[in-house]
Protein backbone atom coordinates (compact mmCIF):
# COMPACT_ATOMS: atom_id res chain seq x y z
CA UNK A 1 0.00 0.00 0.00
CA UNK A 2 1.66 3.22 -1.10
CA UNK A 3 0.86 6.76 -0.02
CA UNK A 4 -0.98 7.57 -3.26
CA UNK A 5 -3.42 4.70 -2.77
CA UNK A 6 -3.84 5.60 0.89
CA UNK A 7 -4.64 9.19 -0.05
CA UNK A 8 -7.03 7.89 -2.70
CA UNK A 9 -8.82 5.71 -0.15
CA UNK A 10 -9.52 8.73 2.08
CA UNK A 11 -10.53 10.91 -0.87
CA UNK A 12 -12.95 8.27 -2.12
CA UNK A 13 -14.54 8.10 1.32
CA UNK A 14 -14.73 11.88 1.62
CA UNK A 15 -16.17 12.27 -1.86
CA UNK A 16 -18.86 9.61 -1.54
CA UNK A 17 -20.38 10.95 1.64
CA UNK A 18 -23.67 9.04 1.55
CA UNK A 19 -21.97 5.72 0.90
CA UNK A 20 -19.42 6.42 3.63
CA UNK A 21 -22.09 7.47 6.16
CA UNK A 22 -24.34 4.46 5.51
CA UNK A 23 -21.39 2.09 5.64
CA UNK A 24 -20.00 3.65 8.81
CA UNK A 25 -23.32 3.38 10.66
CA UNK A 26 -23.54 -0.35 9.88
CA UNK A 27 -19.90 -1.03 10.66
CA UNK A 28 -19.92 1.00 13.87
CA UNK A 29 -23.06 -0.68 15.24
CA UNK A 30 -21.67 -4.12 14.47
CA UNK A 31 -18.32 -3.37 16.03
CA UNK A 32 -19.84 -1.77 19.15
CA UNK A 33 -21.80 -4.96 19.85
CA UNK A 34 -18.74 -7.14 19.24
CA UNK A 35 -16.43 -4.89 21.29
CA UNK A 36 -18.88 -4.73 24.21
CA UNK A 37 -19.08 -8.55 24.09
CA UNK A 38 -15.27 -8.72 23.95
CA UNK A 39 -14.96 -6.34 26.91
CA UNK A 40 -17.39 -8.44 28.96
CA UNK A 41 -15.59 -11.67 28.07
CA UNK A 42 -12.26 -10.01 28.86
CA UNK A 43 -13.58 -8.98 32.26
CA UNK A 44 -14.62 -12.57 32.90
CA UNK A 45 -11.68 -14.52 31.52
CA UNK A 46 -8.64 -12.25 31.82
CA UNK A 47 -6.78 -12.00 35.11
CA UNK A 48 -7.81 -9.02 37.21
CA UNK A 49 -8.32 -8.26 40.89
CA UNK A 50 -9.30 -10.24 42.92
CA UNK A 51 -8.67 -12.99 40.35
CA UNK A 52 -5.15 -11.74 39.67
CA UNK A 53 -3.95 -15.36 39.50
CA UNK A 54 -6.70 -16.46 37.10
CA UNK A 55 -4.09 -17.62 34.60
CA UNK A 56 -2.87 -20.15 37.14
CA UNK A 57 -6.27 -21.17 38.48
CA UNK A 58 -8.19 -24.38 37.74
CA UNK A 59 -11.75 -25.14 38.79
CA UNK A 60 -13.94 -28.15 39.47
CA UNK A 61 -17.50 -26.98 38.92
CA UNK A 62 -19.42 -30.04 37.82
CA UNK A 63 -19.51 -33.74 38.52
CA UNK A 64 -21.51 -36.42 36.71
CA UNK A 65 -22.51 -39.83 38.02
CA UNK A 66 -23.54 -42.45 35.52
CA UNK A 67 -24.74 -46.03 35.73
CA UNK A 68 -26.94 -48.20 33.50
CA UNK A 69 -30.19 -46.94 34.96
CA UNK A 70 -29.40 -43.40 36.10
CA UNK A 71 -27.36 -40.32 35.40
CA UNK A 72 -26.89 -37.29 37.57
CA UNK A 73 -25.01 -34.05 36.96
CA UNK A 74 -24.49 -31.48 39.66
CA UNK A 75 -21.97 -29.30 41.43
CA UNK A 76 -19.35 -31.27 43.34
CA UNK A 77 -19.84 -32.22 46.94
CA UNK A 78 -17.32 -31.64 49.70
CA UNK A 79 -16.36 -35.33 49.82
CA UNK A 80 -15.69 -35.51 46.11
CA UNK A 81 -13.36 -32.49 46.27
CA UNK A 82 -11.58 -33.95 49.31
CA UNK A 83 -10.76 -37.06 47.29
CA UNK A 84 -9.88 -35.37 44.00
CA UNK A 85 -8.17 -32.00 44.52
CA UNK A 86 -6.91 -32.09 48.09
CA UNK A 87 -3.10 -32.14 48.07
CA UNK A 88 -2.80 -32.58 44.30
CA UNK A 89 0.93 -33.02 43.62
CA UNK A 90 2.33 -29.89 41.97
CA UNK A 91 -0.49 -27.59 43.13
CA UNK A 92 0.48 -24.50 45.08
CA UNK A 93 -2.83 -24.26 46.96
CA UNK A 94 -6.38 -25.49 46.82
CA UNK A 95 -9.69 -24.30 48.25
CA UNK A 96 -13.37 -25.08 48.18
CA UNK A 97 -16.13 -22.54 48.13
CA UNK A 98 -19.89 -22.82 47.81
CA UNK A 99 -21.91 -21.44 44.96
CA UNK A 100 -23.66 -18.16 45.68
CA UNK A 101 -26.34 -18.49 48.32
CA UNK A 102 -28.95 -15.91 49.15
CA UNK A 103 -28.72 -14.99 52.81
CA UNK A 104 -30.81 -12.53 54.78
CA UNK A 105 -29.35 -9.88 57.06
CA UNK A 106 -31.62 -8.41 59.71
CA UNK A 107 -30.66 -4.88 60.60
CA UNK A 108 -33.19 -3.37 62.98
CA UNK A 109 -36.48 -3.55 61.14
CA UNK A 110 -34.65 -3.93 57.84
CA UNK A 111 -34.44 -7.24 55.97
CA UNK A 112 -31.62 -7.18 53.48
CA UNK A 113 -31.07 -10.00 50.98
CA UNK A 114 -27.43 -10.59 50.22
CA UNK A 115 -25.21 -12.95 48.22
CA UNK A 116 -23.05 -15.21 50.37
CA UNK A 117 -20.27 -17.74 49.83
CA UNK A 118 -18.87 -20.22 52.33
CA UNK A 119 -15.15 -20.52 51.73
CA UNK A 120 -12.07 -22.28 53.09
CA UNK A 121 -9.39 -20.05 54.70
CA UNK A 122 -6.97 -20.88 51.82
CA UNK A 123 -9.46 -19.15 49.47
CA UNK A 124 -8.12 -15.79 50.74
CA UNK A 125 -4.57 -16.76 49.77
CA UNK A 126 -5.52 -17.72 46.21
CA UNK A 127 -7.64 -14.64 45.51
CA UNK A 128 -6.24 -11.19 46.27
CA UNK A 129 -9.11 -9.15 47.62
CA UNK A 130 -8.42 -5.55 48.52
CA UNK A 131 -9.03 -5.29 52.25
CA UNK A 132 -10.22 -1.84 53.19
CA UNK A 133 -10.05 -2.81 56.85
CA UNK A 134 -9.41 -5.92 58.92
CA UNK A 135 -8.24 -9.21 57.47
CA UNK A 136 -9.62 -12.49 56.22
CA UNK A 137 -10.73 -15.08 58.71
CA UNK A 138 -8.08 -17.66 59.54
CA UNK A 139 -7.67 -21.43 59.67
CA UNK A 140 -7.99 -21.12 63.46
CA UNK A 141 -11.36 -19.35 63.04
CA UNK A 142 -12.46 -22.12 60.69
CA UNK A 143 -11.24 -24.94 62.93
CA UNK A 144 -12.96 -23.41 65.96
CA UNK A 145 -16.15 -22.89 63.90
CA UNK A 146 -16.20 -19.21 64.88
CA UNK A 147 -18.99 -17.11 63.34
CA UNK A 148 -16.85 -14.57 61.52
CA UNK A 149 -17.49 -12.87 58.19
CA UNK A 150 -15.87 -10.73 55.55
CA UNK A 151 -18.19 -8.25 53.85
CA UNK A 152 -17.92 -5.78 50.98
CA UNK A 153 -17.83 -2.05 51.51
CA UNK A 154 -21.14 -1.84 49.65
CA UNK A 155 -22.82 -4.20 52.11
CA UNK A 156 -21.19 -2.44 55.07
CA UNK A 157 -22.60 0.89 53.91
CA UNK A 158 -26.02 -0.68 53.45
CA UNK A 159 -26.13 -2.51 56.80
CA UNK A 160 -23.88 -0.57 59.16
CA UNK A 161 -23.41 2.75 57.44
CA UNK A 162 -20.01 4.23 56.64
CA UNK A 163 -17.27 4.01 59.24
CA UNK A 164 -15.21 1.17 60.74
CA UNK A 165 -16.99 -2.19 60.76
CA UNK A 166 -14.39 -4.69 61.97
CA UNK A 167 -15.38 -6.14 65.32
CA UNK A 168 -19.03 -5.22 64.88
CA UNK A 169 -21.63 -7.94 64.28
CA UNK A 170 -24.26 -8.61 61.67
CA UNK A 171 -27.30 -10.84 62.01
CA UNK A 172 -27.00 -13.25 59.14
CA UNK A 173 -29.90 -15.66 58.82
CA UNK A 174 -30.58 -15.43 62.53
CA UNK A 175 -26.97 -16.00 63.62
CA UNK A 176 -24.62 -13.24 64.72
CA UNK A 177 -21.34 -13.00 62.81
CA UNK A 178 -18.38 -10.84 63.86
CA UNK A 179 -16.94 -8.87 60.98
CA UNK A 180 -13.29 -9.78 60.46
CA UNK A 181 -12.67 -7.70 57.39
CA UNK A 182 -14.15 -5.40 54.76
CA UNK A 183 -13.17 -5.71 51.09
CA UNK A 184 -13.81 -3.56 48.05
CA UNK A 185 -16.93 -4.60 46.15
CA UNK A 186 -16.35 -7.30 43.52
CA UNK A 187 -17.87 -7.37 40.03
CA UNK A 188 -20.16 -10.34 39.34
CA UNK A 189 -18.01 -11.21 36.33
CA UNK A 190 -15.27 -12.34 38.74
CA UNK A 191 -17.15 -15.55 39.26
CA UNK A 192 -14.97 -17.32 41.80
CA UNK A 193 -14.65 -14.14 43.87
CA UNK A 194 -18.06 -12.50 43.64
CA UNK A 195 -20.20 -12.34 46.77
CA UNK A 196 -21.21 -9.69 49.28
CA UNK A 197 -20.44 -11.69 52.36
CA UNK A 198 -18.05 -14.59 52.94
CA UNK A 199 -18.17 -16.92 55.94
CA UNK A 200 -16.20 -20.08 56.86
CA UNK A 201 -17.43 -23.48 55.72
CA UNK A 202 -17.64 -24.40 59.38
CA UNK A 203 -18.05 -27.81 60.89
CA UNK A 204 -17.78 -30.59 58.34
CA UNK A 205 -20.27 -33.31 59.12
CA UNK A 206 -19.77 -36.98 58.22
CA UNK A 207 -22.48 -36.58 55.59
CA UNK A 208 -20.60 -33.67 54.02
CA UNK A 209 -17.39 -35.72 54.07
CA UNK A 210 -19.14 -38.41 51.99
CA UNK A 211 -20.96 -36.14 49.54
CA UNK A 212 -20.13 -36.64 45.87
CA UNK A 213 -22.54 -34.01 44.70
CA UNK A 214 -23.37 -30.83 46.54
CA UNK A 215 -22.99 -27.10 46.30
CA UNK A 216 -19.23 -26.64 46.17
CA UNK A 217 -16.67 -25.55 43.63
CA UNK A 218 -13.06 -26.67 43.79
CA UNK A 219 -10.24 -24.22 43.18
CA UNK A 220 -6.62 -25.19 42.48
CA UNK A 221 -3.76 -22.72 42.15
CA UNK A 222 -0.91 -24.08 40.02
CA UNK A 223 2.66 -22.81 40.21
CA UNK A 224 2.44 -22.10 36.50
CA UNK A 225 0.26 -22.92 33.50
CA UNK A 226 2.89 -25.44 32.44
CA UNK A 227 1.73 -27.59 35.35
CA UNK A 228 -1.86 -27.75 34.05
CA UNK A 229 -1.47 -30.96 32.00
CA UNK A 230 0.10 -32.88 34.92
CA UNK A 231 -2.51 -31.57 37.37
CA UNK A 232 -5.33 -32.51 35.01
CA UNK A 233 -3.86 -35.97 34.46
CA UNK A 234 -3.63 -36.62 38.19
CA UNK A 235 -7.14 -35.26 38.74
CA UNK A 236 -8.52 -37.50 35.98
CA UNK A 237 -6.81 -40.52 37.53
CA UNK A 238 -8.37 -39.70 40.89
CA UNK A 239 -11.80 -39.28 39.29
CA UNK A 240 -11.45 -42.59 37.44
CA UNK A 241 -10.66 -44.32 40.74
CA UNK A 242 -13.35 -42.46 42.65
CA UNK A 243 -15.79 -44.70 44.48
CA UNK A 244 -18.08 -44.36 47.44
CA UNK A 245 -19.46 -47.00 49.80
CA UNK A 246 -22.97 -46.72 48.38
CA UNK A 247 -22.01 -46.85 44.68
CA UNK A 248 -24.19 -49.02 42.47
CA UNK A 249 -22.39 -51.58 40.34
CA UNK A 250 -20.89 -50.06 37.20
CA UNK A 251 -21.21 -46.54 38.54
CA UNK A 252 -18.94 -44.16 36.68
CA UNK A 253 -17.89 -40.66 37.76
CA UNK A 254 -16.92 -37.89 35.35
CA UNK A 255 -15.58 -34.43 36.05
CA UNK A 256 -13.00 -31.96 34.83
CA UNK A 257 -10.26 -29.77 36.28
CA UNK A 258 -10.84 -26.72 34.12
CA UNK A 259 -9.54 -23.29 33.32
CA UNK A 260 -12.02 -20.47 33.88
CA UNK A 261 -13.17 -20.68 30.27
CA UNK A 262 -13.54 -24.45 30.35
CA UNK A 263 -15.34 -24.18 33.67
CA UNK A 264 -17.94 -21.93 32.07
CA UNK A 265 -18.20 -24.19 29.04
CA UNK A 266 -18.65 -27.50 30.83
CA UNK A 267 -21.95 -26.82 32.63
CA UNK A 268 -23.24 -24.77 29.67
CA UNK A 269 -22.69 -27.74 27.40
CA UNK A 270 -23.83 -30.17 30.11
CA UNK A 271 -20.60 -32.01 29.59
CA UNK A 272 -18.93 -33.41 32.69
CA UNK A 273 -16.83 -35.79 30.61
CA UNK A 274 -13.18 -35.00 30.09
CA UNK A 275 -13.51 -33.73 26.54
CA UNK A 276 -12.39 -30.27 25.55
CA UNK A 277 -15.50 -28.28 26.42
CA UNK A 278 -13.51 -25.03 26.17
CA UNK A 279 -12.73 -25.63 22.52
CA UNK A 280 -16.39 -26.35 21.75
CA UNK A 281 -17.54 -23.14 23.47
CA UNK A 282 -14.79 -21.10 21.80
CA UNK A 283 -15.96 -22.44 18.43
CA UNK A 284 -19.56 -21.52 19.33
CA UNK A 285 -18.50 -17.96 20.27
CA UNK A 286 -16.50 -17.48 17.06
CA UNK A 287 -19.36 -18.91 14.97
CA UNK A 288 -21.88 -16.60 16.65
CA UNK A 289 -19.58 -13.62 16.04
CA UNK A 290 -19.23 -14.61 12.38
CA UNK A 291 -23.00 -15.03 11.98
CA UNK A 292 -23.51 -11.68 13.68
CA UNK A 293 -21.03 -10.06 11.29
CA UNK A 294 -22.49 -11.69 8.18
CA UNK A 295 -25.58 -9.50 7.76
CA UNK A 296 -23.81 -6.11 7.99
CA UNK A 297 -20.97 -7.58 5.91
CA UNK A 298 -23.44 -8.55 3.18
CA UNK A 299 -24.88 -5.06 3.35
CA UNK A 300 -21.40 -3.60 2.85
CA UNK A 301 -20.70 -6.07 0.03
CA UNK A 302 -23.86 -4.87 -1.76
CA UNK A 303 -22.89 -1.22 -1.29
CA UNK A 304 -19.39 -1.94 -2.54
CA UNK A 305 -20.66 -3.81 -5.58
CA UNK A 306 -22.92 -0.91 -6.46
CA UNK A 307 -20.02 1.51 -6.53
CA UNK A 308 -17.92 -0.73 -8.77
CA UNK A 309 -19.58 0.69 -11.85
CA UNK A 310 -18.92 4.19 -10.57
CA UNK A 311 -15.22 3.40 -10.43
CA UNK A 312 -15.08 1.19 -13.51
CA UNK A 313 -13.08 3.69 -15.63
CA UNK A 314 -10.48 3.98 -12.89
CA UNK A 315 -10.16 0.20 -12.81
CA UNK A 316 -9.81 0.20 -16.61
CA UNK A 317 -7.07 2.84 -16.45
CA UNK A 318 -5.17 0.98 -13.74
CA UNK A 319 -5.38 -2.25 -15.71
CA UNK A 320 -4.28 -0.50 -18.89
CA UNK A 321 -1.23 0.84 -17.09
CA UNK A 322 -0.22 -2.54 -15.76
CA UNK A 323 -2.07 -3.21 -12.50
CA UNK A 324 -2.35 -6.98 -12.03
CA UNK A 325 -5.57 -8.39 -10.53
CA UNK A 326 -3.87 -9.20 -7.23
CA UNK A 327 -2.69 -5.60 -6.79
CA UNK A 328 -6.16 -4.23 -7.53
CA UNK A 329 -7.75 -6.66 -5.07
CA UNK A 330 -5.23 -5.55 -2.43
CA UNK A 331 -6.00 -1.87 -3.18
CA UNK A 332 -9.77 -2.24 -2.86
CA UNK A 333 -9.59 -4.51 0.18
CA UNK A 334 -7.29 -1.98 1.84
CA UNK A 335 -9.78 0.80 1.07
CA UNK A 336 -12.48 -1.28 2.74
CA UNK A 337 -10.25 -2.04 5.72
CA UNK A 338 -9.59 1.70 6.15
CA UNK A 339 -13.36 2.26 6.15
CA UNK A 340 -13.89 -0.45 8.75
CA UNK A 341 -11.00 0.87 10.86
CA UNK A 342 -12.72 4.26 10.86
CA UNK A 343 -15.87 2.42 11.93
CA UNK A 344 -13.71 0.63 14.53
CA UNK A 345 -12.46 3.96 15.92
CA UNK A 346 -16.02 5.27 16.18
CA UNK A 347 -17.11 1.92 17.58
CA UNK A 348 -14.38 2.17 20.20
CA UNK A 349 -15.71 5.52 21.41
CA UNK A 350 -19.30 4.23 21.52
CA UNK A 351 -18.12 1.06 23.29
CA UNK A 352 -16.60 3.16 26.08
CA UNK A 353 -19.90 5.04 26.40
CA UNK A 354 -21.96 1.81 26.32
CA UNK A 355 -19.77 0.14 28.97
CA UNK A 356 -19.93 3.22 31.20
CA UNK A 357 -23.73 3.11 30.90
CA UNK A 358 -23.73 -0.61 31.68
CA UNK A 359 -21.56 0.00 34.77
CA UNK A 360 -23.87 2.79 35.86
CA UNK A 361 -27.03 0.68 35.72
CA UNK A 362 -27.69 -2.17 38.17
CA UNK A 363 -28.38 -4.56 35.27
CA UNK A 364 -25.16 -6.43 36.04
CA UNK A 365 -24.33 -6.25 39.79
CA UNK A 366 -21.14 -4.33 40.59
CA UNK A 367 -20.19 -4.28 36.90
CA UNK A 368 -16.78 -2.73 36.32
CA UNK A 369 -16.38 -3.18 32.57
CA UNK A 370 -13.69 -1.17 30.91
CA UNK A 371 -11.78 -1.06 27.66
CA UNK A 372 -8.13 -1.88 28.10
CA UNK A 373 -5.32 -2.29 25.56
CA UNK A 374 -6.22 -5.94 25.05
CA UNK A 375 -9.89 -5.17 24.28
CA UNK A 376 -8.76 -2.35 21.98
CA UNK A 377 -6.42 -4.79 20.19
CA UNK A 378 -9.19 -7.37 19.78
CA UNK A 379 -11.53 -4.62 18.56
CA UNK A 380 -9.07 -3.56 15.88
CA UNK A 381 -8.52 -7.19 14.86
CA UNK A 382 -12.28 -7.65 14.56
CA UNK A 383 -12.47 -4.44 12.45
CA UNK A 384 -9.68 -5.61 10.14
CA UNK A 385 -11.27 -9.05 9.80
CA UNK A 386 -14.64 -7.42 9.08
CA UNK A 387 -12.97 -5.21 6.45
CA UNK A 388 -11.33 -8.12 4.68
CA UNK A 389 -14.45 -10.31 5.08
CA UNK A 390 -16.75 -7.71 3.49
CA UNK A 391 -14.23 -6.27 1.05
CA UNK A 392 -12.76 -9.28 -0.65
CA UNK A 393 -15.65 -10.32 -2.88
CA UNK A 394 -16.36 -6.83 -4.29
CA UNK A 395 -12.61 -6.32 -4.77
CA UNK A 396 -12.34 -9.61 -6.60
CA UNK A 397 -15.28 -8.67 -8.84
CA UNK A 398 -13.72 -5.25 -9.52
CA UNK A 399 -10.37 -6.76 -10.39
CA UNK A 400 -12.01 -9.18 -12.81
CA UNK A 401 -13.60 -6.42 -14.85
CA UNK A 402 -12.59 -6.60 -18.50
CA UNK A 403 -10.42 -3.48 -19.04
CA UNK A 404 -12.15 -2.50 -22.29
CA UNK A 405 -15.60 -2.74 -20.67
CA UNK A 406 -14.29 -1.00 -17.58
CA UNK A 407 -13.00 1.95 -19.63
CA UNK A 408 -16.44 2.25 -21.21
CA UNK A 409 -17.90 2.36 -17.69
CA UNK A 410 -19.13 -1.15 -18.38
CA UNK A 411 -20.96 -3.91 -16.54
CA UNK A 412 -19.75 -6.62 -14.21
Amino acid sequence: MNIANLKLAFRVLARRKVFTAISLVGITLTLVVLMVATAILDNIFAAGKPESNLDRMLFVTVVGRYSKDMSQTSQPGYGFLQKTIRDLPGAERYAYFTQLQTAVIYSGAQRIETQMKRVMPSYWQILDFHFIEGAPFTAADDAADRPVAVITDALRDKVLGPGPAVGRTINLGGQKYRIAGVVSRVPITRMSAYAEVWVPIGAVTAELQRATIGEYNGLVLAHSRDDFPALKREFNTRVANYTTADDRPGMETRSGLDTAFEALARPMLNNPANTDAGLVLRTIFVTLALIFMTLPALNLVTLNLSRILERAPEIGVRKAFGAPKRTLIAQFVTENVILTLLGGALGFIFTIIALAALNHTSFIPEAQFNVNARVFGYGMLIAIFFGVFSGFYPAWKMARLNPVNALRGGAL
Partner: protein
Amino acid sequence: MITLNNIDKVYRTERVETLALQNINLDIADGEFVSIMGPSGCGKSTLLNLIGLLDKPTKGKLLLDGTHINGAGDRSLAKMRNEKLGFVFQSFHLVPDLTVLDNVEIPLLYRKIAAGERKKLALAALDRVGLSSRVHHFPTQLSGGQQQRVAIARAIVGKPRIVLADEPTGNLDSAMGDEIMGILQELNEKDGTTVVMVTHDDRFAQQTGRTIRLFDGRQVA
Protein backbone atom coordinates in the same frame (compact mmCIF):
# COMPACT_ATOMS: atom_id res chain seq x y z
CA MET B 1 7.65 -3.99 -33.10
CA ILE B 2 4.00 -4.93 -33.51
CA THR B 3 2.92 -7.83 -35.72
CA LEU B 4 -0.62 -9.03 -36.35
CA ASN B 5 -1.14 -12.18 -38.44
CA ASN B 6 -4.62 -13.14 -39.71
CA ILE B 7 -6.31 -11.54 -36.73
CA ASP B 8 -10.07 -11.98 -36.25
CA LYS B 9 -12.06 -10.56 -33.38
CA VAL B 10 -15.57 -11.84 -32.80
CA TYR B 11 -17.90 -10.56 -30.08
CA ARG B 12 -20.43 -13.13 -29.02
CA THR B 13 -23.58 -12.67 -27.01
CA GLU B 14 -26.27 -15.29 -26.43
CA ARG B 15 -28.05 -14.39 -29.64
CA VAL B 16 -25.69 -12.39 -31.81
CA GLU B 17 -22.21 -12.92 -33.15
CA THR B 18 -20.45 -9.80 -34.39
CA LEU B 19 -17.30 -9.98 -36.47
CA ALA B 20 -15.49 -6.84 -35.39
CA LEU B 21 -12.20 -7.52 -37.19
CA GLN B 22 -11.48 -9.91 -39.99
CA ASN B 23 -8.14 -11.15 -41.27
CA ILE B 24 -6.02 -8.24 -40.16
CA ASN B 25 -2.34 -8.44 -41.13
CA LEU B 26 -0.17 -5.65 -39.91
CA ASP B 27 3.46 -4.85 -39.18
CA ILE B 28 4.35 -1.68 -37.34
CA ALA B 29 8.06 -0.99 -37.10
CA ASP B 30 9.89 0.50 -34.16
CA GLY B 31 9.69 4.32 -34.27
CA GLU B 32 6.77 4.51 -36.72
CA PHE B 33 3.88 6.97 -36.32
CA VAL B 34 0.81 5.17 -37.65
CA SER B 35 -2.75 6.41 -37.79
CA ILE B 36 -5.83 4.20 -38.03
CA MET B 37 -8.85 5.63 -39.80
CA GLY B 38 -12.28 4.52 -40.79
CA PRO B 39 -15.94 5.19 -40.18
CA SER B 40 -17.56 4.67 -36.79
CA GLY B 41 -17.95 1.01 -35.85
CA CYS B 42 -15.37 -0.22 -38.37
CA GLY B 43 -13.17 -1.76 -35.64
CA LYS B 44 -10.53 0.96 -35.09
CA SER B 45 -10.75 0.95 -31.30
CA THR B 46 -11.01 -2.85 -31.26
CA LEU B 47 -7.76 -3.03 -33.22
CA LEU B 48 -6.09 -0.57 -30.83
CA ASN B 49 -7.33 -2.56 -27.82
CA LEU B 50 -5.81 -5.73 -29.27
CA ILE B 51 -2.49 -4.00 -29.89
CA GLY B 52 -2.70 -2.59 -26.35
CA LEU B 53 -3.24 -6.07 -24.88
CA LEU B 54 -6.51 -4.93 -23.36
CA ASP B 55 -8.39 -7.56 -25.30
CA LYS B 56 -7.50 -10.88 -26.93
CA PRO B 57 -7.98 -11.84 -30.56
CA THR B 58 -10.43 -14.63 -31.36
CA LYS B 59 -8.10 -15.94 -34.06
CA GLY B 60 -4.61 -15.19 -35.36
CA LYS B 61 -1.24 -14.32 -33.89
CA LEU B 62 -0.21 -11.14 -32.17
CA LEU B 63 3.42 -10.37 -31.41
CA LEU B 64 4.58 -7.41 -29.39
CA ASP B 65 8.30 -6.66 -29.45
CA GLY B 66 8.85 -10.27 -30.61
CA THR B 67 6.76 -11.84 -27.84
CA HIS B 68 3.68 -13.97 -28.61
CA ILE B 69 0.86 -12.69 -26.46
CA ASN B 70 -1.82 -15.24 -27.35
CA GLY B 71 -1.32 -17.54 -24.39
CA ALA B 72 -0.03 -14.96 -21.91
CA GLY B 73 -1.66 -14.81 -18.48
CA ASP B 74 -2.94 -11.80 -16.56
CA ARG B 75 0.32 -11.05 -14.77
CA SER B 76 2.56 -11.18 -17.83
CA LEU B 77 0.09 -9.12 -19.89
CA ALA B 78 -0.06 -6.57 -17.07
CA LYS B 79 3.75 -6.46 -16.96
CA MET B 80 3.99 -5.98 -20.74
CA ARG B 81 1.39 -3.20 -20.67
CA ASN B 82 3.22 -1.53 -17.82
CA GLU B 83 6.67 -1.66 -19.38
CA LYS B 84 6.07 -1.37 -23.12
CA LEU B 85 2.82 0.53 -23.59
CA GLY B 86 1.32 3.91 -22.79
CA PHE B 87 -2.32 4.81 -23.42
CA VAL B 88 -4.04 8.08 -24.28
CA PHE B 89 -7.85 7.96 -24.35
CA GLN B 90 -10.37 10.20 -26.06
CA SER B 91 -12.10 11.01 -22.77
CA PHE B 92 -8.79 11.30 -20.88
CA HIS B 93 -9.81 8.84 -18.12
CA LEU B 94 -8.03 10.70 -15.35
CA VAL B 95 -8.92 9.51 -11.83
CA PRO B 96 -11.00 12.38 -10.42
CA ASP B 97 -10.02 11.72 -6.80
CA LEU B 98 -6.30 12.06 -7.53
CA THR B 99 -4.23 15.17 -8.17
CA VAL B 100 -2.50 15.69 -11.49
CA LEU B 101 0.77 14.45 -9.99
CA ASP B 102 -0.84 11.34 -8.49
CA ASN B 103 -2.57 10.57 -11.79
CA VAL B 104 0.71 10.74 -13.66
CA GLU B 105 2.37 8.45 -11.11
CA ILE B 106 -0.17 5.64 -11.70
CA PRO B 107 1.93 3.53 -14.15
CA LEU B 108 4.91 3.76 -11.79
CA LEU B 109 2.88 2.36 -8.86
CA TYR B 110 3.10 -1.02 -10.52
CA ARG B 111 6.88 -0.95 -10.72
CA LYS B 112 9.36 -1.19 -7.91
CA ILE B 113 10.17 2.49 -7.77
CA ALA B 114 10.59 4.51 -4.58
CA ALA B 115 8.10 7.31 -3.88
CA GLY B 116 10.74 10.03 -4.32
CA GLU B 117 11.84 8.70 -7.68
CA ARG B 118 8.21 8.32 -8.80
CA LYS B 119 7.56 11.95 -8.00
CA LYS B 120 10.71 13.04 -9.87
CA LEU B 121 9.73 11.11 -12.99
CA ALA B 122 6.12 12.35 -12.85
CA LEU B 123 7.25 15.97 -12.49
CA ALA B 124 9.59 15.53 -15.47
CA ALA B 125 6.75 14.10 -17.58
CA LEU B 126 4.46 16.98 -16.58
CA ASP B 127 7.20 19.47 -17.39
CA ARG B 128 7.49 17.92 -20.81
CA VAL B 129 3.80 18.54 -21.56
CA GLY B 130 3.99 22.05 -20.07
CA LEU B 131 1.93 21.43 -16.94
CA SER B 132 4.49 21.90 -14.16
CA SER B 133 2.36 24.61 -12.61
CA ARG B 134 -0.71 22.39 -12.24
CA VAL B 135 0.69 19.40 -10.35
CA HIS B 136 -1.52 19.78 -7.29
CA HIS B 137 -4.72 20.52 -9.19
CA PHE B 138 -7.47 17.98 -9.60
CA PRO B 139 -8.60 16.96 -13.10
CA THR B 140 -11.91 18.82 -12.79
CA GLN B 141 -9.95 22.05 -12.27
CA LEU B 142 -8.32 21.74 -15.71
CA SER B 143 -9.47 22.45 -19.28
CA GLY B 144 -9.98 19.57 -21.72
CA GLY B 145 -6.65 20.27 -23.43
CA GLN B 146 -4.84 20.36 -20.10
CA GLN B 147 -6.46 17.10 -19.04
CA GLN B 148 -5.32 15.44 -22.25
CA ARG B 149 -1.79 16.73 -21.66
CA VAL B 150 -1.90 15.16 -18.18
CA ALA B 151 -3.06 11.93 -19.86
CA ILE B 152 -0.08 12.10 -22.24
CA ALA B 153 2.28 12.72 -19.30
CA ARG B 154 0.80 9.63 -17.64
CA ALA B 155 1.29 7.64 -20.86
CA ILE B 156 4.96 8.58 -21.22
CA VAL B 157 6.07 8.68 -17.56
CA GLY B 158 7.20 5.05 -17.67
CA LYS B 159 9.11 5.66 -20.91
CA PRO B 160 7.20 3.05 -22.95
CA ARG B 161 8.37 2.11 -26.46
CA ILE B 162 4.81 2.36 -27.78
CA VAL B 163 2.11 4.97 -27.18
CA LEU B 164 -1.43 4.06 -28.23
CA ALA B 165 -3.78 6.99 -28.62
CA ASP B 166 -7.51 6.43 -29.15
CA GLU B 167 -8.88 9.60 -30.76
CA PRO B 168 -6.77 11.82 -28.50
CA THR B 169 -8.08 14.98 -30.15
CA GLY B 170 -11.70 13.82 -30.42
CA ASN B 171 -12.98 15.83 -27.47
CA LEU B 172 -10.90 18.94 -28.10
CA ASP B 173 -11.24 22.01 -30.27
CA SER B 174 -8.88 22.29 -33.25
CA ALA B 175 -6.32 24.52 -31.51
CA MET B 176 -6.03 22.17 -28.59
CA GLY B 177 -6.04 19.22 -31.00
CA ASP B 178 -3.06 20.75 -32.80
CA GLU B 179 -1.29 21.13 -29.48
CA ILE B 180 -1.81 17.48 -28.58
CA MET B 181 -0.80 16.35 -32.04
CA GLY B 182 2.37 18.41 -31.69
CA ILE B 183 3.28 16.63 -28.44
CA LEU B 184 2.71 13.18 -30.00
CA GLN B 185 4.84 14.12 -33.00
CA GLU B 186 7.61 15.36 -30.77
CA LEU B 187 7.49 12.09 -28.82
CA ASN B 188 7.83 10.16 -32.05
CA GLU B 189 10.51 12.30 -33.61
CA LYS B 190 12.69 13.14 -30.62
CA ASP B 191 12.36 9.98 -28.54
CA GLY B 192 11.70 7.49 -31.34
CA THR B 193 8.55 6.33 -29.56
CA THR B 194 6.26 4.26 -31.75
CA VAL B 195 2.86 5.96 -31.86
CA VAL B 196 -0.33 4.30 -33.05
CA MET B 197 -3.24 6.73 -33.17
CA VAL B 198 -6.90 6.21 -33.99
CA THR B 199 -8.40 9.34 -35.52
CA HIS B 200 -11.37 10.57 -37.48
CA ASP B 201 -9.51 13.65 -38.60
CA ASP B 202 -7.82 13.37 -42.00
CA ARG B 203 -5.73 16.47 -41.23
CA PHE B 204 -4.05 14.72 -38.30
CA ALA B 205 -3.77 11.41 -40.17
CA GLN B 206 -1.80 13.17 -42.90
CA GLN B 207 0.76 14.25 -40.32
CA THR B 208 1.56 10.61 -39.47
CA GLY B 209 3.96 8.37 -41.36
CA ARG B 210 1.34 5.85 -42.47
CA THR B 211 -2.41 5.46 -42.36
CA ILE B 212 -4.22 2.16 -42.00
CA ARG B 213 -7.79 2.31 -43.18
CA LEU B 214 -10.51 -0.03 -41.94
CA PHE B 215 -14.00 -0.64 -43.27
CA ASP B 216 -16.48 -3.07 -41.72
CA GLY B 217 -13.71 -4.79 -39.79
CA ARG B 218 -11.50 -5.26 -42.83
CA GLN B 219 -8.23 -3.56 -43.63
CA VAL B 220 -8.72 -1.68 -46.87
CA ALA B 221 -5.48 0.28 -47.01
